[in-house]
């Protein structure tokens, strides 16, 4: 397959303006003749659905939760980046672009990232106009904080609930369009397949989660805004329902999947407490502004702490190793996530971890509290400290937090061109569901930015170009054979799952997949482990299809059945992630292959051979996927080894 990124010609800073001018427009009176399906109501989906409805398109919006307001974006804590330079500290669109490209370890497209940085400023304006209560200075101007991988203060925030407030803003815009009759909402509805006919996306097949009814929806274009697939690891900071199903089933219908192995492990999460653990909780990266990360200098001390014979506060200053400050004096505790995570893992691997399991390091606020007073720290992080205490029963004002890395975000996703269109014409992917802007590692506070950039400011232009090209008549009814066949296929899969009647609950199978992925395709990977993982996943797939146990009926609310569909897709995706990780014989960003590292343990890229997007093409059940390469061209930045020293 020939992958055309469709990046416009011209100087970097003019590309988006040129593209906007080149794209075809749908005349205002004709917009109501087009139907657009938006799957997902997170930041990407809600902003897209609202904006397209405002323009006059007829929108159908879908989510699996009971309300669009509960999409996983709601959980984002720390903030959203924008190149406003309100702090007069040297920020600019180019600097945000540059930081993002560098932070992504030079595995993202220059054109897309520059556009992202450009529209970032409009996002803040839009959200403020909606009534999003961002943090303010006493004079009434907007406040900022800094985040990892940046030396300027460009992150806007609403206490520790930035995602919530941004999503509620987008949700309110969406709700307004529901009231206007331009958006029809389908909640507790899961997309189970994409309908493709005549080489174009024609609509989707869904399951009503309350009644179990399988239904078809037809449209001129379909937007997948279905979030990331971090739950392939079972334990992650994602909400329990986050899944890859929509993207994966679209992949099997021809949408190529980009860089599936690029996953982000977040350094500051609350460590695992037991086998019953169902999810991991993130402690926002913003905490690293004031918290200092350390581990005991000696293994002996660490062991005593693990056994409960010694407390963190017992350790004298010179018995502590502030390892990030020591190794990266320029960025200190604010190094990018992949670097911070790997260093924490190394401490634990050396036997210097703390907590009962030895799988944790400290994040200490004692100095910040001494410097600024408890009040100031409380104002900045109060709700995060409370959250920590609720989960662990420990008070972080008195004793350092314990943290450990956890799966958090997936940079990989459906491959899209500059217009956010996948390789299936008429099918778009927005937000975390696409692969496009973060390369091999995402900087903090950039996912919210990307989701809203895609939904508010990119798709309203680009989807019009496609619609104007095909015309209003180019749509097929839900009783046409393409829809009927897809419905039957979906029904057959459900029947097949219900009839396995094995002995293992689906959740248990999901946990096993998670263990395999974390062990062999997590923070550090090597060829041998990946080969083994592949075998284990294939065996697990057999086990799933012969031994899964799902109680209840398919024609009613059935949460185990929902999970079964998702786990089946995660298993297949897991195998592709392993293939992708095996193929990429280099280390970059979140993808750390142990065979490829510098003498001091940093990721060793191979730009000569791997400066490309690995775009995988489905080849039918049981066949290896076909690797397509989109070569990345860098005209505006020089590829160097990332250094945060």
């Amino acid at each position, binding site marked *: 397959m020939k992958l055309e990124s469709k990046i416009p010609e011209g100087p970097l800073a003019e590309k988006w303006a040129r593209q906007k001018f080149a794209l075809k427009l749908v005349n205002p009176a004709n917009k109501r003749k087009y139907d657009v399906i938006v799957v997902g109501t997170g930041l990407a989906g809600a902003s897209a659905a609202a904006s397209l409805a405002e323009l006059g398109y007829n929108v159908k919006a879908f989510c699996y939760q*009971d309300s669009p307001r509960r999409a996983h974006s709601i959980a984002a804590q720390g903030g959203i980046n924008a190149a406003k330079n309100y702090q007069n500290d040297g920020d600019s669109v180019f600097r945000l672009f540059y930081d993002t490209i560098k932070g992504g370890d030079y595995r993202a497209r220059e054109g897309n990232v520059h556009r992202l940085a450009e529209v970032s400023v409009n996002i803040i304006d839009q959200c403020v106009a909606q009534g999003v209560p961002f943090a303010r200075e006493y004079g009434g101007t907007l406040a900022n904080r800094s985040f990892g991988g940046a030396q300027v203060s460009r992150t806007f925030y609403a206490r520790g609930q930035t995602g919530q407030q941004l999503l509620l803003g987008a949700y309110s815009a969406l709700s307004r369009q529901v009231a206007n009759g331009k958006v029809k909402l389908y909640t507790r509805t899961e997309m189970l397949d994409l309908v493709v006919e005549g080489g174009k996306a024609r609509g989707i097949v869904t399951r009503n989660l309350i009644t179990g009814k399988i239904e078809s929806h037809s449209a001129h274009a379909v937007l997948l805004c279905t979030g990331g697939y971090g739950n392939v690891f079972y334990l992650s900071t994602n909400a329990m329902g986050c899944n890859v199903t929509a993207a994966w089933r679209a992949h099997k219908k021809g949408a190529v999947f980009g860089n599936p192995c690029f996953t982000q492990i977040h350094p500051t999460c609350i460590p695992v407490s037991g086998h019953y653990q169902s999810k991991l909780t993130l402690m926002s990266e913003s905490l690293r502004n004031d918290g200092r990360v350390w581990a005991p200098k000696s293994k002996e001390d660490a062991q005593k702490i693990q056994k409960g014979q010694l407390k963190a506060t017992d350790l004298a200053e010179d018995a502590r190793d502030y390892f990030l400050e020591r190794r990266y004096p320029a960025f200190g505790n604010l190094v990018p996530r992949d670097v911070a995570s790997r260093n924490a893992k190394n401490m634990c691997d050396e036997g210097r971890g703390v907590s009962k399991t030895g799988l944790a390091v400290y994040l200490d606020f004692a100095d910040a509290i001494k410097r600024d007073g408890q009040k100031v720290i409380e104002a900045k992080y109060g709700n995060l400290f409370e*959250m920590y205490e609720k989960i662990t029963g420990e008070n972080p004002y008195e004793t350092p937090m314990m943290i450990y890395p956890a799966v958090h975000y997936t940079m990989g996703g459906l491959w899209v061109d500059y217009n956010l269109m996948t390789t299936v014409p008429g099918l778009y992917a927005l937000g975390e569901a696409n692969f496009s802007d973060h390369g091999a590692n995402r900087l903090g506070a950039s996912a919210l930015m990307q989701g809203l950039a895609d939904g508010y*400011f990119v798709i*309203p232009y680009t989807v019009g170009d496609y619609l104007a090209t095909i015309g209003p008549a180019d749509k097929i009814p839900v009783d046409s054979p393409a829809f009927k066949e897809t419905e039957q296929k979906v029904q057959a899969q459900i029947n097949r799952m219900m009839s396995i009647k094995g*002995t293992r609950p689906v959740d248990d199978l999901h946990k096993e997949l998670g263990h395999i992925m974390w062990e062999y395709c997590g923070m550090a990977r090597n060829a041998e482990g990946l080969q083994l993982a592949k075998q284990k996943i294939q065996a697990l797939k057999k086990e799933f299809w012969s031994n899964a146990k799902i109680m209840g009926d398919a024609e009613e609310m059935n949460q*185990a059945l929902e999970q079964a569909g998702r786990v089946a897709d995660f298993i297949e995706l897991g195998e592709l992630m392993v293939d992708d990780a095996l193929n990429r014989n280099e280390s970059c960003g979140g993808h750390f292959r142990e065979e490829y590292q510098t003498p001091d343990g940093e990721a060793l890229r191979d730009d000569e051979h791997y400066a490309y997007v690995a775009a995988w093409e489905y080849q039918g059940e049981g066949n290896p996927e076909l690797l397509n390469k989109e070569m990345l061209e860098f005209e505006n930045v020089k590829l160097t080894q990332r250094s945060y020293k």
Partner: protein
Amino acid sequence: MKITLKVWRQKNTNTEGKLVDYQLDNVSEDMSFLEMFDVLNDSLTRKGEDPVTFDHDCREGICGTCSMYINGRPHGPQTGATTCQLHMRSFNDGDTIVVEPWRARAFPVIKDLMVDRLAFDRIIQAGGYVSVNTGSAPDANEILIPRSIADEAMDAAACIGCGACVAACKNASAMLFVSAKVSQLAILPQGQAEHRERAERMVAQMDAEGFGACSFTGACSVECPKSISLDHIARMNREYLGAKLASDNVQG
């Protein structure tokens, strides 16, 4: 620890439900309340029984999906926390815990502990927004908002739409939820242009959904996981009265 659960089981909206007893012998105090339900569901499935249906998603107190009525209190014994943030260390070995769904006419039970809260979405659709189209906003710093105002708006905006306030209220009133949104937008300059109709429309929708009247007992605010203050109800009443006096544009 050993725990006895009495859990509301109801097949669907149209059938009767009842409390069913379950015994759990191996509960760790570090488990979350929902993880205990995961363990219960695992054992039910293995035994060939239907697992308990319950709503949950983020499991960190922010999405507002989880909704259990535990020993007569929405979200259980902890204040300022959701069910998913509740840990078993809040209970004692040998405890019996009764778990029911939210009870309110406007929140019909879908199955077991899961209820339908679409009424909340319809109330927001009635006016819980600032009418501003994408692309038409001025520069963000052109609207100066004193920190105290921004903070007050944020306090109100922290509502997660869980419905505990309704479940806690003997009249099943939705006043706390509605007032939080009305108040957030009434405090901010961006919300001024529409503040009158907003209150009127949202209250009209609240009534139409079958929520009860507010008798200001304050139970809602006590049980609210985000500790939304009763002050917002007072502010909304002012907004609403002002609107009624000034306009005749919204009926009932």
